[in-house]
């Protein structure tokens, strides 16, 4: 029941045993670099995983691999081409953002959040500013809220387009990813016209946004919206009618509703299993109650369902952008706030619906100008641990399809 009963806690964790493991030194002399079984194993799960039965071998996918979407490392126990079990190893991109945020000013904290989900940076800033506004009891101008929703939905479209393109790339299709990157480049260019940065826009501020809409952004947006629907449709029909693509994804990694909820899934991956859980409706946080859009769900819960659900979400985001442009009121985009923020001691939690699911921030203020505790909750971190459920029994090539359909961003997983 308890883990590592032999080790007194918590201060003397045994040093990494692979240094004095005789097998390791031998293999290093041979020049072999592979998943070395930890010796002795620290937990029951580790001991179970690293004991090989006959016919099985360990293969090490990552941390540098073309289709791991970053620096994810997965140790696979395979029998021939069939994956028996696998053990994801994280932390190759752990940058200590929480600790840095606890040592930074409230305003500086927001800029440190951008590189977490570097595909959808604005969604990392959003929960933080909402939590700080709760701590400060300040109200945001409605125009600022509309601008947040507008830029956020634009970024959601680009993130989903990239996810679909990489899904095709990991299955061996070369072309769709470039078509997705055309969309993504157009969107990030117009957001760069709005925010000043191309990828890590440090745009949201506590109590509003950094700047009002400008002419270049509006002209680029109108130019793009005039042909966005057609382009999205065309890019998607590259894939969702391809027989090879459909046959490789249908029935792969099927997840049911109850298990998905117990695995703390959220976002498109959860909605693809049939649960209509979308924080924009389940726990409204901005002007989303005033907007009219649907929550697409699918019942299959397999990789193909996740793929098709993202296509539906892109169409809904286009609807939301259209409404924002029509309903946006005039007025200021920043609330009146002091330069140096010292909120009252208290705790605040805020969560938003990012392209990958529930992105949350839990902030504790102790009255100083720095957050006392800053906790980041990332959805892909929780999606990744479903590998142990979905993967065994499938082939190695299926892991790439499954990983691409879950669409993790390692910057957010490894904080």
């Amino acid at each position, binding site marked *: 029941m308890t883990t590592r009963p032999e080790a007194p806690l918590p201060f003397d964790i045994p040093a990494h045993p692979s240094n004095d493991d005789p097998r390791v030194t031998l293999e290093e002399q041979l020049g072999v670099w592979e998943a070395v079984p930890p010796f002795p194993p620290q937990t029951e799960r580790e001991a179970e995983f690293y004991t090989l039965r006959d016919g099985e071998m360990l293969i090490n996918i990552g941390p540098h691999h073309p289709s791991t979407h970053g620096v994810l490392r997965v140790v696979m126990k395979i029998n021939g081409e069939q994956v028996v079990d696998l053990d994801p190893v994280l*932390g190759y991109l752990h940058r200590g953002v929480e600790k840095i945020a606890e040592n930074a000013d409230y305003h500086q904290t927001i800029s440190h959040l951008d590189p977490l989900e570097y595909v959808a940076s604005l969604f990392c800033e959003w929960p933080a500013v909402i939590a700080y506004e709760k701590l400060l009891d300040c109200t945001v101008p409605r125009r600022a809220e509309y601008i947040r929703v507008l830029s956020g939905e634009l970024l959601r479209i680009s993130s989903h387009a990239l996810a679909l393109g990489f899904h095709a790339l990991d299955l061996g299709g070369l072309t769709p990813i470039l078509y997705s990157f055309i969309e993504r480049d157009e969107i990030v260019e117009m957001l760069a016209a709005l925010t000043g940065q191309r990828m890590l826009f440090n745009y949201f501020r506590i109590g509003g946004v950094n700047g009002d809409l400008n002419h270049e952004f509006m002209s680029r947006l109108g130019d793009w919206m005039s042909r966005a629907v057609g382009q999205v449709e065309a890019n998607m029909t590259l894939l969702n009618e391809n027989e090879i693509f459909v046959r490789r994804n249908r029935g792969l990694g099927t997840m049911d509703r109850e298990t998905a909820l117990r695995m703390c899934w959220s976002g498109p991956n959860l909605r693809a299993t049939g649960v209509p859980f979308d924080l924009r409706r389940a726990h409204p946080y901005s002007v989303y109650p005033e907007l009219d859009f649907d929550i697409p769900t699918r019942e299959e819960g397999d990789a193909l369902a996740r793929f098709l659900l993202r296509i539906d979400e892109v169409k809904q985001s286009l609807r939301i952008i259209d409404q924002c442009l029509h309903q946006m009121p005039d007025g200021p985009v920043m609330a009146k706030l002091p330069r140096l923020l010292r909120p009252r001691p208290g705790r605040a939690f805020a969560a938003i619906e990012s392209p990958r699911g529930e992105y949350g921030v839990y902030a504790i203020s102790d009255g100083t100008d720095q957050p006392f505790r800053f906790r980041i909750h990332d959805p892909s971190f929780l999606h990744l641990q479903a590998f142990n459920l979905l993967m065994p029994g499938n082939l190695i090539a299926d892991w790439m399809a499954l990983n691409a359909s879950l669409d993790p961003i390692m910057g957010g997983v490894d904080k």
Partner: protein
Amino acid sequence: MDPALRRRLEGRLGDRMTGPVRQRHDETEIRIGPADVPEVLRALYDEPDLRFRYLADLAGVDTGTAMQVVYHLWSDTTPDWLRVIADGLDRDAPRVPSITFLWKGAEWMEREAFDMFGIVFEGNRDLRRIYMPPDYRSFPLRKDFFLPDDAARSPGAGIRQMERSHSPRDATSTTLVRRSKAG
């Protein structure tokens, strides 16, 4: 802010709480002892008028004097977030029962809390370091773990420099620890 939820919580879990129910904005906060975590969370999960079926977040907190484990739950019966704080863990040997029997997805979040704070979740069958390398010696998010003013000028800049120069043993005395006034 949902007063009905407050009444329901006090009626159902009044004896377990170690403090009053706090409510602010759209959040409701209760505090319990670490030993009561399984019972309280199972009750919150199963009660037909509570139905907190979705675990939004699991966070460890080091207040400088004690450790806390904070659970955020979501339910379709209330517009509030429910925050359950398991308070008063010993800072030298923090232990709390695991909740992987309710939410299997909490396994990695508990691993993260163990990696960052050294909190031991009894019942988690895979409690390893998840972010830092296995031979890492200290817990970065504790309040007695200090960041260097300029890492470039720190001793032994390069691979794995931080756990050598900034483990709790080498750190300065714990009088410098920021203690939370928020409690």
